[in-house]
């Protein structure tokens, strides 16, 4: 205990889980029979010959979603320390000050969300 995260325990379970999975996979690769076949090794494509490259074109919406996620997630993470201390602020009589300060930040957040919806950044055709 102490500290934010018990580092040794986390490292221990990480190594244990990785070894568990790796050993199981290793065992499975030794036990099962393998029949090599050129056609079988091909990429799956509904029974016909492979049509397209793997690195095919991807809708730009996925990138946009990822960018928007990062922006909004960081904004949400900034609210976490506020939420944890809000009760103490109220108890010490500064609740309204804390709420107002956060209100400005939330105003920016809501404006961002509104703008995002209005500019049709979230429309999937």
């Amino acid at each position, binding site marked *: *205990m102490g*500290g*934010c*995260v*018990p580092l*040794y*325990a*986390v490292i*221990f*379970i*990480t190594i*244990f*889980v*990785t070894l*568990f*999975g*790796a050993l*199981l*996979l290793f*065992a*499975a*690769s030794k*036990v*099962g029979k*393998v*029949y090599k076949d050129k056609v079988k*090794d*091909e*990429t*799956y*494509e509904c029974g016909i010959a492979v049509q*397209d490259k*793997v690195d*095919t074109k*991807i809708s730009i919406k*996925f990138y946009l*979603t*990822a960018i928007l*996620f990062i922006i*909004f*997630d960081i904004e*949400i*993470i900034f609210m*976490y320390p506020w*939420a*944890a201390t*809000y*009760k*103490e602020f*109220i108890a010490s009589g500064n*609740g*309204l000050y804390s*709420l107002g300060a956060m209100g400005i930040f*939330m105003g920016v957040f809501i404006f961002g*969300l509104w703008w*995002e*919806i209005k500019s049709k950044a*979230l*429309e*999937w055709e």
Partner: protein
Amino acid sequence: MGSDIFEVTVNALKLVTIFLVMVSLVPSLVWLERRGAAFIQDRLGPNRVGPLGLTQLAADAVKFIFKEEFVPAKAIKFMFYGAPVFALLPASLALCALPLGPIINIIPFEAFGQTWGPYIFSIQGYEASLGILFVLAASSLAVYPILMAGWGSGNKYSLFGALRGSSQIISYELAMGLAILGVILIFGTFNLNEMVTAQNGPLSFSAFDYSMTLSFLPNWGIFYQPIGAFLFLAAAFAESNRLPFDLPEGESELVAGFHTEYGGLKMNLFFIGEYGHMIVASALMVIFYFGGYLIPGVSPEQVTQFLSGFIDSQNMTAVLSGLIHLGAFSIKVFIFLWIFIHVRWSLPRFRYDQLMELGWKTMLPWALGNLILTAVIMAAIH
């Protein structure tokens, strides 16, 4: 991990046990899901192998291991093999940080000609003082195995499934994060243990100068955060890729999504990861909104007192009381796991644009509104 060999051993054993229990819960859940689905659809389900079809689990496990180990020629080997192993990690890391029972105080005792103790053990893998943040950080790692599998398979269907999966998971993480913020506001802490202890006793509101106690209801978070609880549950479904949010593996469009090229044990490891996520989500739901390991109407002290009427040893009483609370926690978690299974066989799948619209345009504003409402009410009633 501890000061002497006994403490280190116990702590390590706890971690290993939690992980192995999670892994071995998966076949039972699969059986429950198949039987439950069968009964919902007016069938019988697997009932031939052993009593109630229970040995089907063992048969499945053996079958998975003995299957052929297949790698497509175009796969990137490291990613293809790494993804299923990595898929186990997020759920087990998160599960180990959850409090499963009260703290056990062990007073000094004699064994092997030596005095051991005193010790303080908690029924949880490890105690992260920033509980929620650690759990969120660990469980959001779940995007990586999906992307690794999608890219490593060298298959279009896998790639599209992985992209859909990851963008769905990150979209619903926003609503989930905001729903959890409401919980943090109510309890004023990040620590999961403190949250559970705060839900002890009967439900009591205090507004202005009045205070009201409803002695027939427990002091659970659901009564303070009903909207938040619903949003969290919905987001949890999306995070663990379960129906109605299982777009990443929508078989009508994408064959099997990111695990199209996987089979046998590798596929099984993905399964363990997915069910592990379900277990973590149910456990978080219980901890945030349903009193964690607490038994409604009975406080941990009362349980200990009751037990000490039968048992002399103080250490045994502490351990037994811990196990009873662990049992209560498991029952609550199983109720939620059953809800996960029941919903899967009751609701149809969303279309992808509907899914993103629900996440960004419905759940995100509702969660934000819930947060603001909670904050304003908390300030107003003081």
